[in-house]
């Protein structure tokens, strides 16, 4: 097996020690950091993404592969140029005010992160003003909100209003999700994207990202 094949397989299987050793070995052999990133780490995550789509991998395996990829990237970072590391976008996210149910939001955050987004997770019970303030302070491209309760869903609309007041609505695209949330509700409150599950959330974010670029 070639070095890069070996590296990709170990990223896919979430074997951190092996990946660190292989990245070091690749550098020793004279491969550029850019080449290792593109043909090793990112190529591996493309395979992982496809296998997740095909339902061959379990989500915890995808998350572990992403963590492993990040560990490899840490070695390369100092060697990479400014334009070498492309971030898909910056996402501020949390559960809305009054809602403490965060496992779905956490899963989306982890998957977005593994798909190359920079995620700023505000946690649970986030007030509309806090969402707007953090979105502005971080220069976020996306704002993601999650709600499990029909009683807390109106906070999504309130947050969008808050973004408008702050003059951020043109720059920040709003993504919403959660069990009771629907596309119809997203349309009604003027959200930019809705996803019915975690896998779909990543797709929607990527599509919206591509529109901007």
């Amino acid at each position, binding site marked *: 097996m070639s070095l890069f094949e070996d590296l990709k397989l170990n990223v896919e299987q979430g074997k951190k020690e092996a990946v660190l050793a292989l990245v070091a070995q690749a550098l020793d052999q004279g491969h550029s950091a850019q080449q290792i990133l593109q043909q090793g780490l990112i190529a591996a995550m493309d395979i992982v993404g496809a296998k997740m789509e095909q339902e061959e991998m379990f989500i*915890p395996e995808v998350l572990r592969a992403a963590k492993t990829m990040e560990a490899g990237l840490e070695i390369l970072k100092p060697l990479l140029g400014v334009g070498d590391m492309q971030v898909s976008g910056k996402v501020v996210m949390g559960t809305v005010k009054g809602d403490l149910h*965060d496992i779905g939001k956490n899963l989306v955050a982890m998957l977005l992160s593994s798909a190359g987004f920079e995620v700023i997770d505000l946690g649970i019970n986030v007030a509309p003003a806090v969402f707007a303030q953090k979105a502005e302070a971080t220069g976020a491209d996306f704002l993601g909100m999650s709600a499990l309760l029909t009683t807390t869903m109106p906070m999504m609309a309130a947050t969008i209003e808050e973004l408008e007041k702050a003059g951020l609505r043109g720059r920040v695209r709003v993504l919403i999700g959660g069990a009771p949330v629907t596309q119809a509700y997203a349309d009604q409150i003027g959200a930019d994207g809705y996803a019915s599950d975690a896998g779909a959330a990543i797709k929607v974010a990527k599509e919206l990202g591509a529109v901007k670029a």
Partner: protein
Amino acid sequence: MTQLRNASQVGRLGFLSEQNKRDIYLAALEVLANVGMRVYHEEAKTLLLEAGCTLTPQDRVLMPRHLVEQARLCVPSVVNLYDRDGTLALELGGYNSYFGPGSDLMSTYDLETGAHRPSTLKDVARAARLCDALPHLDFIMSSAHPTDQDPHLSYLLSFAEMMQNTRKPLVMTAENERDLSVMIQIARELRGGAEALRQKPYLVVYNEPISPLEHPEESLSKLLLCADTGVPSIYSPAPLAGATAPITVAGHTTQGVAESLFGLVVHQLRKPGAPFLFGIGPAVLDLVTAQSSYNAVEYLMTYMCAVEMAKWLDIPNWGYAGTSDSQLLDAQAGMEATQITFLAMQAGSNLSHDVGYLDFGLTGSLEEIVLVDEFISMNRRLLAGIEVNRDTLALEAIAEAGPGGQYMTSEHTYRYMRAVQWRPTILNRHGRERWLADGGLDLAARARQKALDLLATHQVPALPADLAVKTDELIGAFAAAGA
């Protein structure tokens, strides 16, 4: 060997107390000793009379208790079956449970067109190949009856098709000892001799008396041939409650036990220690519609009694699974086919057939076979039981996650998830959006798609060329002699 064991590790539904089982056994012995049975096979009759049975003026054979007891001492508690390649495949006995299709369905729902049409030899081949591909069907029967062939050749031609289209062990029906002896000859060619086939049985023969209390010439001929050759034999009646058997569950069971044990005695007298399967096909005549039900609740009760009696007698049993009386693969079929299958699994019914039956055992559905395979897969996981130990109690993982934490990146989840979480192949686990995007299909349609995909892709290694030639020769000679 451990991977072959499919016994339920959890509690079982019990229908009979120890006293009930003794009572049923004693009642069956009384039927054998005092009512007697009619035997249409002279050689078998002589065998029985010489062993101590008596003949009444009404030509009934009365069987004394000690002959049954003697047969019980001789009959093996475990019967092993080996696949086409000679690998151990099924260990019939104890609470191990295995599944396969039924045989001789006159009509088939065409997989491609959905049309209800007469079954053909091609359906036998397709069912065998599909079942070969499905991991939770363990043995093969003909499924369809080839109505497009000479009836006297139909069983033999089916046997040849099944041998070509699956590696799994076979359960065969045959017209009489003549076509059966050709099947055994072919199986000996496969194994490399009579002794090799005796050591590693490849086929089981399904023989049946006729209820009430009659033993036809053909059934006993085949039973004796099995005893002589070491080919395992089922001897299972199909007493029809309310018509050819008592209407009560206890009476239904009693007559069935007596009929099956009568065959056991003939079989063990001929060859002590020969492999035998006890069974009752406890059909129920619906006394309003006059249909013979495979899924009446009383059927299920007598079936469970039969399995419990088999365990009590410590003889491997022949059973039923995956059947429905419905006219098509609808919600009724889902409900009935899964209930009988689950009952069979939890009871540890050893060799359960008829997966894919609809329409009172008259019409076959490959989609139903696919559906039941999935159900067996799911419930083998369920009945494997729950492991409770320090590591599965997950105290460290719980402490690590803590309040408000998560387990998606926990080492514990990573380590156990694939072993713990059973994956469906056709049951829907997608949200509405993805389900709609995938065509919004119901379970029957997804089962159909899986069957089509498997039939398009699954290959069974060809038989050695000389064996294929020999098989054709033997069947040709049989056909010529018959004509």
